[in-house]
């Protein structure tokens, strides 16, 4: 997937501008001390983002540049979200037991015995080092496992 760098950076700058405006508006509700520095920072970001937008659209430095994003990276965002939700719902061990082989398979590894071996090895490592060795509480599932 290809996007012109000019447009991609403009969208990011608009995002930065929106964040700074949001913080600027919210800061008006706070006391003088609490709002002083965030206000300065928000105005600073707003000015820099506006200046950079002018640089992008007036100059021609980004004219021919293209931003390449692989679809795999976008799919991976969903995988990450899925894993995070999975950990919250099913706990780290169960979610990892699903996520790790799935991710390896998705990355093109078809030797299932190897995928299974690495997953089991990793889970055993986590169990013995973190849970048994250090008695570290890892994320539990909602059902308490």
């Amino acid at each position, binding site marked *: 997937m290809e996007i012109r760098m000019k447009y991609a950076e403009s969208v990011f700058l608009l995002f*930065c501008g929106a964040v700074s405006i949001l913080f600027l508006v919210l800061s008006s509700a706070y006391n003088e001390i609490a709002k002083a520095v965030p206000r300065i*920072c928000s105005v600073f970001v707003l000015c*820099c983002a506006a200046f950079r937008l002018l640089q992008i659209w007036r100059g021609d430095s980004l004219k021919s540049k293209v*931003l390449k994003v692989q679809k795999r990276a976008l799919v991976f965002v969903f995988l990450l979200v899925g894993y*995070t939700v999975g*950990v919250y719902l099913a706990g*780290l061990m169960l979610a990892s037991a699903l996520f790790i082989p799935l991710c390896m398979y998705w*990355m093109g590894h078809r030797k299932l015995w190897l995928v299974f071996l690495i997953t089991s090895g990793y889970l055993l490592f986590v169990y013995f080092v973190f849970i048994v060795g250090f008695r*570290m509480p890892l994320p539990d599932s909602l059902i308490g496992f």
Partner: protein
Amino acid sequence: MIWEGFLSAMAPVNILYAFLGTALGIVMGAIPGIGSSMTMALLLPFTFWMSPAGALILLGAVYCGATYGGSISAILLNTPGTPASAATSFDGYPMAQQGKGMAAIGIAAMASFVGGAAGLVLLFTVSPLLAEISLKFGPAELFLLTLFTFTIISVTVLKESVMKGLIALGLGLIFSGIGYDPISGALRFTFGLSYLEDGIQLVPAIIGLFAISEVFAFVEMGGTISNSLEAKGGLSDGFRATFRYPATLIRSTVIGSVIGALPGIGVSAANLIAYVAAKARSKHPELFGKGSPEGVIAPEASNNAVTCTSLIPTLTMGIPGSSSAALLMGALMIHGLIPGASLFTTYGEVTYTFFFGLALSNIFMLLLTVLTVRFLVKITVIDVGFLIPIIVSLCFIGSYAMRNNTGDAVVAMAFGVLAYVMRKLKYPLICLLLPIILGAMMERGYHQSLMISGGSFSIFWASPISKTILAITLLSLLYPLAGFFRKMSGNRR
């Protein structure tokens, strides 16, 4: 007393503690997010039954080992194990990609050893003097120091696109404002979420910015980390390369030592500041970010110097220079030792045993590197498809474990996506990270200074230290401007 301390440190049981602590520290430090303070916190209950010297040696060795261990994953996987090695990945990882992973680890180990040894010498010799200087750093001086750090980054790292860096810097400052206001205690920008009351946590932010964003790069890249399956340069090449840049080594050690002695700034900022300073003073700044040995020497020498000198305010005044130093102070107190002059008089033997234990840990660090590096570098020739889910899962554990909060893991993932976008658009991540580390300190320094002076800005140039920092800040701003105008006039002619 020093001699007795040496003899006590050489007791087999203390040597064993130093070895085990270093090995454990290196392993735990290499796992993103775990780091020294968490490992020390987990070990603390196990030290109750040990002798005071043994407990301190074990925890101190973990502290030194973890600081170095973080650089191994930073170099081989571009995922810094600890905040202390965030800057190591900038040049260490490109070296690993070029097949020079072993040499990069050699540089990191030797620079860490030199930095740690120099920090120890300072700990032995100038502890009281440095503690006195650090006491002279009031809020105004700390504010100016953070301002100087931001300025020096703007004029060195961001030479290519100042605006991009400034936007990232501002964005980081905005994020650092989330949570309780450090002075008035007012809640800010929490959007009704109780999680945000404590602000953006440093460890998940670093994991997201460097580790998760790197995982995205792995997903796109596929294959293996190292482009070359043949190792170029061995460990000894790395050891030798460290001494080819004596100025960088000395400068970074001094930066680390001074920052370590100042309470509050800590190792997270020291490695970045040393990296920026090395780039600014290098004869080949264009090689930074592409596998420059200086880019590995600077953060590694500084972060291990910090580990030792951060103990100076801890031991002499009871003011911990870092969270790990705070844990060591806790261990001291658990064993009935109170920070202050008595540590160098009544309990001098225990203190000096501890110092020699740290020296042992530094030696073990080198030894363990020599023994294990051949196996460690193999990770760069493993298909990233196997590494990706494991790194993600370890990042999840690392960001969750410090506070047992799933929100931290969510923040790590969110910062990972943000960092991925910023990397694609070539925005410097270092500029987003540094304000998250130092933003609260800067804000606190600013308000406290104005409160002390009754609202007068003259406090910012009142003391000799303030004047010096201010002068250096202005000079660092004027120097590139002069170059810019010289270039402009040259073009006109």
